[in-house]
């Protein structure tokens, strides 16, 4: 589903965090949202996911205003993976994935096997079907992130929002996780810190700084050493890597 953001302002109390943000995310694309800490990536994701109402401007998903959707309808279309998903409850992996069926269920508890086939499918797509009976508290960081992805997929979303999904993952898990996401074919918007990963897995990039969008377009166009110098204040060489056939970012002070 195509996402269009038009002139959004949003803030907490008197502090404005997003300033006149506009951006477009084509249907079926994977877009990386990059920018320094505190540049408004998480806030923008939350506003686009319908969790926060912008003080000005609008978000349209598939030509409909997201903030006009009833919350359950919204949750059947948009899934959000948060930055640090944690719980103190003793849940199994299958139970965590089952949470994704909540927006599809009625108010009153129904049959116990409700949505079972979607849950199995989500476990497979997130590649955690072998962990289904494990307890969440015993999982590693990489496994937890894949379980959260499976939970999101159980919502059967047409739009996936990921907030720094590869933080705390080792290289192998970072690559595995983002390859899995790419393979889904769902329109995806992911806030990312690692520019190499962003270059490798994103069709497009949207760059933020201080609550403003300062760059948007295809990864090749956007990711330049001038931009990185400007936004992060770091000198880099960005060139196409001969063996990997993609942009690679090397910093040098």
């Amino acid at each position: 589903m195509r996402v269009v953001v038009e002139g959004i302002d949003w803030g907490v109390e008197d502090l404005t965090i997003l300033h006149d943000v506009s951006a477009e995310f084509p249907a079926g694309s994977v877009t990386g949202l990059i920018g320094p800490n505190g540049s408004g990536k998480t806030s923008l994701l939350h506003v686009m996911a319908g969790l926060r109402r912008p003080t000005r401007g609008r978000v349209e998903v598939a030509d409909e205003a997201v903030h006009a959707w009833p919350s359950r309808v919204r949750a059947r279309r948009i899934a959000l993976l948060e930055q640090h998903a944690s719980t103190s409850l003793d849940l199994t992996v299958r139970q965590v994935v089952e949470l994704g069926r909540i927006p599809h269920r009625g108010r009153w508890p129904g049959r116990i096997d409700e949505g079972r086939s979607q849950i199995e499918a989500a476990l497979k797509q997130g590649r955690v079907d072998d962990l289904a009976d494990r307890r969440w508290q015993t999982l590693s960081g990489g496994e937890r992130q894949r379980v959260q992805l499976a939970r999101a997929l159980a919502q059967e979303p047409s739009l996936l929002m990921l907030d720094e999904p590869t933080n705390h993952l080792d290289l192998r898990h970072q690559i595995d996780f983002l390859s899995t996401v790419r393979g889904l074919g769902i329109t995806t918007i992911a806030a990312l810190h690692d520019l190499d990963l962003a270059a490798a897995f994103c069709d497009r990039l949207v760059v933020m700084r201080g609550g403003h969008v300062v760059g948007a377009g295809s990864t090749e166009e956007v990711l330049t050493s001038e931009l990185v110098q400007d936004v992060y204040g770091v000198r880099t060489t960005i060139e196409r890597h001969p063996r990997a056939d993609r942009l690679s970012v090397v910093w040098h002070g």
Partner: protein
Amino acid sequence: MHQQQTAVVSRGTAGTAAPFALLTLLLLVTMIVALGIGSVSIPISTVTDVVLQRLGAGVDASLLDDQIVWQLRMPRVLAAAATGAGLAICGAVLQSLTRNDLADPYLLGISGGATAGAVSVIVLGVSVAGLVSATMITLGAFAGALLAMVLVLALATGRSGALPPSRTVLAGVAIGQICAAYTSFVVIMSGDHDAARRVLSWTLGSLAGIRWGSSLFLCCVAGLAVVLIMAFASDLDAFAFGESSAGSLGVSITATRWTLLIGSALLTASLVAFTGAIGFVGLVVPHVVRLVWGPLHRRLLPLSALLGAILLLWADTIARSLVSGQEIPIGVVTAVIGAPAFAWLLRREGRDA
């Protein structure tokens, strides 16, 4: 090796039906046994005869047995079950909603407010009219509980109308302290030893003096609460990973919080007004159910209600029959039975965590 496997794989993934049937059966057995226990011991067969006769099954029971079982003990047994069920689901809801293991039904200053209300009636009533009816105390306690709830919610509400859990807990503590100070002040200033004793016994809770009218009211309130809360089972599950996660699963966070906090407060206030502040049940029962049957609410809520009913029923039976001719405060009994059982479960859990 094998043991490690069982530690990693969680228990409690089976259906709801088996534990539900087990606890329902246990509750019915407990009720029948409790009806036979007291200063006059009545055999179980006679108890069932009385109950069957009252339910119109054409069995003959003596008038005396009927008087004891049906008129004296039955209202109290039903009230204990209803109160236990109500307190346990309130505890479960508030713990999930605030993601705080120490949350209990009295979180919103309910018990402090109810005590302050009851004390006002007891002390001022004693000094003004020389006589206080139980109904007046009940009304005073209910009014006090509601007043405290309104103050806590007003204190905790942010400018945007949101109700952050941590502020709600702290506001509850603040109002609770004010109520406690007021209560102590009034009791000390009145200098009335009888009032002081009644206040103490009120704060520890008692089901003595519950008659059919109040008992049916408590059953209706608790029954309604158990049914209505099931509509929120999924929403409460959605809070497992915090509030943004609940929001992204389609739960309206602020509306759900307001509805459930006010609902729990009204339920607790109704119970507490009749029984006094019975501690421990609302805090511990949901934890026990989570430890044994897992944290999902479509199981947690009904099983907590059943276990709460069973626990409070035993506590009340012990309270009224352990020392003949004297009532032990029920709060003392719930703590004495509940605390060791809970400690044992915690240790067992600690071994494989």
